[in-house]
């Protein structure tokens, strides 16, 4: 959920991996099971298609969709900066794309405008909900959201079970309602396990300042926190650097990754990995599912789809080498409680305050 960073990385599809041709589309949305003539494409936000975050994940979902249905056409366009969103969405619409994904809530306003202008085409927004002037959902936009708070709750549980200092940290990127979901859910998870654990929270107000991330982590660890969770994109790199450094120094500190199974790409050093676990967000599955449904004539236009624990839309990462048996058991237990409604995970500051009072 932290692709808002200004990662100027905008790699390109050199055609090899997606084997698509630009085909003239007659604009008709025939819903055919074999996918003949069906096209699903996406516009990345400035993070780029390989941001090791939700853009990459979304593209993985589309790619898989393309592999499973060889006759469909999948593709993406990357945005170099925020002013590219509207033209890029328009570009897809103009090409007659059957289903255009906008990856990231930053495209909320742009997708609304474009969708209004191209009422015959289907769109989907990842991470937010589009409403028109009358506060109604838009017919030709599907809204894909995730229960980041629930996933964050679970890694909060893991953190609470592992902390030895009873002090845990959270580093946010730029403060926004989305990142607040991560923060609130995480804090709730920690407190649910042990209300006495101290939690330090700091926002870097930047998704790309590793130096800031490192210093925040340094201060948090220095003040006694031993596990830090981040939802801060590139700023999080500083957290990992700091954690590795301290681990190398013999300190028992951990970091928790976000969006993807970050232990696979980050956190490694000579004697192991400082990433305790990660909160993954399965944008790939969500995208795949919506694309498939649309192809089959079931476009969920005007609906809000929330991908949560239930359908594995969010959860803790596969890599759990560092997580104790106990913690995993606890996670499973709490997951069940969330699913059956016993625990209502907070998403905002207000909800969190209520939640904390209720403990």
């Amino acid at each position: 959920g932290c692709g808002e960073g200004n990662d100027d990385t905008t790699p390109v599809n050199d055609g090899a991996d997606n084997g698509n041709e630009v085909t003239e589309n007659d604009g008709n949305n025939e819903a055919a099971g074999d996918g003949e003539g069906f096209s699903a494409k996406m516009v990345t936000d400035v993070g780029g298609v390989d941001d090791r975050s939700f853009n990459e994940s979304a593209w993985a979902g589309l790619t898989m969709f393309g592999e499973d249905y060889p006759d469909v056409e999948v593709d993406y366009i990357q945005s170099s900066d925020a002013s590219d969103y509207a033209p890029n969405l328009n570009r897809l619409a103009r090409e007659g794309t059957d289903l255009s994904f906008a990856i990231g809530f930053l495209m909320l306003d742009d997708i609304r405008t474009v969708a209004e202008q191209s009422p015959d085409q289907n769109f989907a927004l990842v991470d937010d909900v589009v409403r028109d002037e009358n506060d109604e959902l838009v017919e030709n936009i599907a809204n894909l959201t995730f229960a980041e708070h629930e996933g964050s709750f679970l890694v909060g549980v893991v953190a609470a079970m592992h902390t030895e200092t009873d002090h845990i940290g959270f580093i946010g990127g730029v403060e926004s309602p989305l990142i607040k979901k991560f923060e609130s859910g995480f804090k709730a998870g920690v407190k649910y396990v042990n209300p006495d654990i101290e939690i330090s929270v700091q926002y870097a107000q930047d998704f790309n300042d590793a130096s800031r991330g490192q210093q925040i982590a340094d201060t948090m660890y220095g003040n006694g926190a031993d596990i830090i969770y981040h939802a801060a994109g590139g700023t999080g790199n500083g957290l990992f650097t700091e954690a590795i450094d301290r681990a190398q120094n013999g300190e028992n500190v951990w970091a928790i990754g976000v969006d993807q199974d970050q232990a696979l790409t980050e956190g490694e050093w000579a004697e192991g990995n400082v990433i305790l676990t990660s909160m993954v967000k399965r944008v790939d599955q969500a995208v795949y599912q919506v694309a498939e449904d649309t192809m089959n004539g079931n476009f969920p236009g005007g609906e809000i789809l929330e991908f949560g624990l239930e359908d594995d839309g969010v959860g803790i990462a596969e890599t759990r080498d560092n997580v104790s048996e106990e913690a995993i058991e606890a996670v499973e237990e709490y997951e069940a409680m969330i699913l059956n409604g016993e625990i209502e995970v907070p998403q905002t500051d207000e909800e969190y305050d209520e939640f904390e009072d209720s403990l």
Partner: protein
Amino acid sequence: MTNALKSKLFGLVIPLIAIGFGFLAGAVIMLVSGNNPIDGYVALFQGVFGDAYYFGETLQRMTPLIFSGLAVAFAFRTGLLNIGVEGQLIVGWFTSVFVGITVEAPMAIHLPLSLLAGALAGALWGFVPGLLKARFQVHEVIVTIMMNYIAMHVVNHFIRNFMLESGQRTAFIHGSSSLSSDFLADLTNFSRLHWGFLIAIGACVLMWFLLWKTKKGFELRSVGYNQHASSYAGMNVNLNIILSMSVSGAFAGIGGAMLGLGTYNYANILPSFTNYGFDGIAVALLGASSSVGIFLSAFLFGGLKEGANNMQGQAGVAPELVEIIIALIIFFVASSYLIRWIYSRLQSSKKEGK
């Protein structure tokens, strides 16, 4: 006379040659990296001229660039390097949107008021380094760099705490302060082209007029070239420095208003700089700090950036290539010495040949 004409013509030819060289180098890079340069450039040009929509977007995109270019150039003419256009643009964006949201008035009042607010905010952001330069001889480059960061954080703070509507942005401005134009949008197939484009053209004329046709402009240029002689001639050097930075900031501020009142109709929390200000440095320098030059180079910039999106979609060429091409064009323009040298070589060998 013919000599003067010749040198003027030559001044026009150099950027063209430079642009040619830049594209040539881009083609070589495409070849080396396994792309087809012809496909790439066809896609690039189609991405600008291929459809009224893209063309409209290109014009929309160049609008703030014109302003940031003018801002840099205006200060430059007065001997000041304004690296703070970025910050001035950000506060201009925010303030114009603030007025656009909070004030209710008929369009005839509201729109100019919002633009003015943007201009004033930008001017204030330019005034500070100008004042410090005039009063304490503090180097404007450092102060403007610092002011950029201050602008971004302060604006984000205001939006986050007082004006946040959905996601990371403020509410939409009232229609009465919006530059958006159904007419222009229809004309260009729903692009976001807005009336600000005409204001930008007006601003080019205004800068040219200010600098070359007014008394103040005469003083500003004079101070830019020689502060000592200017003060001997009775001009108030400090006042002119402050004025220059403020006007420069005002241009930048209106550039921000173009985004706030035209392109987006809201302001949002900026996770990082917009880069319009920094691009403005390049636009101004490529345009030789002249109004016409800035207009053309803003078009080149806007077009390249717009076309880059099509280039990746249609020809599979990375959009960074455009950045490389821009860098090389700037390089060749700056190194016009090289072009002149080659030219004079050609001339003399022609002579010898006869």
